[in-house]
């Protein structure tokens, strides 16, 4: 299975679980976003372009399943995936806390972006409710990213592509 396919499976499963199981549930006062966390992890592992595409597709899936205005979640997740990918390609590479840190920062930034987009479209949105759970959600997402990162890394296993440990050295 190619990395792209594995990424697609991961994002698809995450989107389905996000809408079907995770959305609306509260954990320690937070409303965790599984799709966002998986997207951040995937983008960190697979790069900015894959992250952007995964974000777009994931957002589209969520939009379809929730019968929301198509594209709104996609815009936010595309940018989020791209940013996480760029972070992974540059400063975040190899850092053990890159995933939790990126998940925290992107959660904090994505929530107001989502609220603003819905507001611009004239859809009812409660900024108070969104911001009330922002920090707990960011912390829980961060913890989720910390746990999911090694699992996703193993699932997407392609050591040379994903920066894994080198098994042999070839003298050129």
């Amino acid at each position, binding site marked *: 299975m190619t990395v792209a396919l594995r990424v697609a499976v991961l994002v698809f499963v995450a989107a*389905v*679980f996000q*809408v*079907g*199981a*995770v959305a609306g*549930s509260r*954990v320690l006062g937070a409303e965790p976003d599984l799709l966002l966390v998986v997207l951040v992890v995937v983008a960190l592992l697979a790069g*900015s*372009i894959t992250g*952007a*595409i995964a*974000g*777009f597709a994931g*957002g*589209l*899936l969520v*939009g*379809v*399943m*929730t*019968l929301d*205005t*198509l*594209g*709104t979640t*996609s*815009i936010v997740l*595309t*940018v989020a995936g*791209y940013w996480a990918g760029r972070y992974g390609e540059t400063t975040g590479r190899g850092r053990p806390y890159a995933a939790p840190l990126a998940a925290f920062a992107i959660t904090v930034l994505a929530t107001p972006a989502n609220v603003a987009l819905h507001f611009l*479209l004239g859809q009812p949105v409660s900024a108070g409710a969104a911001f009330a759970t922002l920090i707990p959600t960011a912390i829980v997402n961060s913890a989720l990213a910390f746990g999911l990162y090694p699992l996703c890394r193993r699932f997407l296993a392609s050591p040379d592509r994903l920066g894994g440990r080198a098994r042999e050295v070839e003298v050129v």
Partner: protein
Amino acid sequence: MGGLVALALVLVTISFREDGSGPLADAQSAAASALRPLQVAADRVAEPFRDAYAWGEGLAHARTDAKRLQRENEVLRQQYVRARLAEQENARLRSLLRFRSGPRFPEGFEGVAAEVIYRPPGAYAQAIVVAAGRDDGIRVDDPVVTAQGLVGTVSRVGSRTARVTLLTDDQSAVSATVLGTEAAGIVRLGQGPRAPLRLVRVPKEAVVKVGDTVVTAGWRSRRFSSLYPQGILIGRVTSVGRADTDLFTQVQLEPFADLSSLEAVLVLVPSDRAAGTP
């Protein structure tokens, strides 16, 4: 990324303009229907984890909740007790108030309401101490009543307190009549807990039946008069005995007033004295 964002914006625009009816909306609806089973499956898969989390969370909160509820329970219990006491006091005072302004209240007297502040322990001390005294116009021998009936007389008086000897004291004696008959006698301490009072010196020929009501006689002669105004309820006849050898009929009474749990009483003060009291 720019292309994807632009594509997303196009989707937003079309989706927003269609507003639920159009090819994109139809496609979205069809896709949503197709994905619905997967969502349900995801929900089923996640359900045990959600339940486990809820159980764990409930367990963690149970201890805190128990402590909080215990504290709340204590506060509520105290409030309940206070409310019940206030309710009882309110009922007692209302009852006294109704009695004082009712037709049964004796003429020529004013009622000084007084709270019972002390009840000597033991079965032998048939007296109470009330929170009203000389300053309220109370004097020794003033009759003391409740809305139910006669309680006793004031036997000692201080400036703000008074001691009331109950009907059940062996020194107490009240001249009384049986309502609706010519029978008269003196109410004295009874001979057992089931009949705390007895009516003595009732002529043998007097017709007294169980259930008859005994009230104060309130006699008045040229030089003397009874301590008690006429017509105050004392008790109900519980048994009547006539032996051939006895000179008088044996009449046992049960007092109307519950002398064992008095909380507030009215001391009957003659109106002329009450008028001179500040």
